[in-house]
């Protein structure tokens, strides 16, 4: 799927397959992540996102297939790989009976950071994740949102080259969601980030590239914009035209390249929804027709298909 110079790739996965008993969580998944890229895995629950993340972080080996991270094999050279990765698992598992400070210190030691760096980095990540007032609070007493921040703090503590975030904004309140996304965007400027989500706007906000995964297989891969473009299929437009509906509508329908046209009135405005055939740009045609008919063209708007629709289209395709 991705054919690039393997040297520029941070992560390269080929033929990744994982079985839980007889059930395949992911099957023949191939992808590559470039250095400094923010890659999003998008898919409904149970699509195989968490399985993929767990394989990337060395938590469990794939049943089949190979992954290299910075040219280290994820199974054979697991320790080297784990040194380079920061990981935020889906449920943010933390030691509830430890204070934030000691927890971060512990994670730093486990990551074999020199004691001096641990101290410096703890105050840095506490700043970045805005945990200042909660340094010595027991993690068990923190709210879900703050625990999420502690989770992110430990993931970035050792300045990993790759950040793997599994559903980083799940279960936290909307304001914290916005903050978390901003934080991920900032981190993505310097680090390679792989994140999974089932929230569509999140992907278009944060990610450079999206992999849509469904039932353990990658069903689409592109930038959020291209994906929208590529999957438009038929293009929709909304046009406001001043003129008698009984004349305008047949005239629009008669145009070449128009698949369908419909009309609705909205507070005295006459709005026509026009469905064009694939790849056709009808703006020119429409404006000429309207002017030629002696009517007035008041507005014209292209309606791209939202990622949500694409997502539904892609992931429900097989059932249809």
């Amino acid at each position, binding site marked *: 799927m991705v054919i690039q110079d393997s040297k520029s790739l941070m992560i390269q996965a080929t033929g990744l397959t994982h079985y839980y008993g007889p059930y395949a969580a992911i099957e023949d998944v191939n992808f590559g992540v470039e250095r400094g890229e923010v890659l999003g895995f998008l898919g409904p629950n149970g699509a195989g996102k968490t399985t993929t993340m*767990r394989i990337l*972080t*060395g*938590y*469990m*080996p794939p049943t089949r297939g190979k992954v290299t991270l910075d040219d280290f094999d994820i199974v054979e050279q697991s*320790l*080297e790989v*784990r*040194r380079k*990765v920061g*990981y935020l*698992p889906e*449920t943010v*598992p*933390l*030691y*509830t*009976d*430890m204070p934030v400070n*000691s927890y971060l210190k*512990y*994670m730093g*030691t*486990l*990551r*074999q950071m020199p004691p001096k760096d641990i101290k410096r980095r703890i105050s840095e990540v506490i700043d970045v994740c805005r945990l200042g007032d909660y340094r010595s609070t027991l993690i068990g007493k923190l709210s879900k949102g703050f625990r999420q921040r502690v989770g992110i703090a*430990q993931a970035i503590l050792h300045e990993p080259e790759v950040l793997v975030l599994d559903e980083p904004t799940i279960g936290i309140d909307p304001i914290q969601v916005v903050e978390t996304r901003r934080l991920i965007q900032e981190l993505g400027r310097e680090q390679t980030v792989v994140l999974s989500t089932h929230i569509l706007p999140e992907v278009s906000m944060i990610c450079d590239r999206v992999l849509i995964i469904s039932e353990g297989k990658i069903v689409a891969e592109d930038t959020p914009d291209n994906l929208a473009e590529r999957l438009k299929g038929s293009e929709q437009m909304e046009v406001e035209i001043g003129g008698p509906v009984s004349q305008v509508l047949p005239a629009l329908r008669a145009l070449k390249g128009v698949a369908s046209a419909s009309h609705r009135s909205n507070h005295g405005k006459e709005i026509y929804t026009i469905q064009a055939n694939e790849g056709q740009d009808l703006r020119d045609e429409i404006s000429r027709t309207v002017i030629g008919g002696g009517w007035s063209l008041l507005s014209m708007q292209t309606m791209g298909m939202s990622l949500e629709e694409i997502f539904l289209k892609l992931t429900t395709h097989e059932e249809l």
Partner: protein
Amino acid sequence: MRTVQAVAWKEIQIYFSSPTAYIVAMIFLALASFFFVRDLSNPFPQASMSSFFQGATIILILLAPTLTMRLLAEEQKLGTIELLLTSPVRDWEVVLGKYIASLVFLLGTIVLTLYFVLLLIIFADPDPGPIWAGYLGLILYGAAALSIGLLTSTLTSNQIVAAVVAMGILLVLYFTDFAAATLTGLPATIVNEIGLKSHFDDFERGVIDTKHIAYYLLLTSFFVFLSIRALESRRWR
């Protein structure tokens, strides 16, 4: 080695920040003093720790698993094992660190019973041989008991299951002499030699036999090794 130390230190801190450890230590000391007093309140009191050592081996069957049950079962329950195993830490370092923490806590508790020895020295003239040999035996016995609890804690995410299974194994190993009594010849010898208790009695009599030391060290390393293997197998399950 730094990571082993870090894991051990964190576990020790958690022992002291939770009530479980204090309760375990308190019950151990209370029961131990009960056994200790038994020897003294006879019509013919002896300046000996024999009853204490006998009692301590039974108490440890119940208390060692409660010290170890949390070690890995809780990590699996909370899911923190996911972050632990994705850190650049080897599985043996995790297991060893956890084991050392439980051993340090147990040693600390045993050290507190030296108070009994002090009493004997002040008020009587005890024979030091059986006392120091007994302590050596008790530490080895406790180390073995903890290693069994460590293994069961690795195998389940349920702390109660971990503790109960470990107690079961310890009880079986403790009472092998009953089973040995119904057998004859080689099987009897084998069953008796496997037993935890049959190797302890010499220590408490003041005899330090390398055979017994080797037995406890072997048993302990065997269960610690199995625990490491069990943790490794989590990745493949």
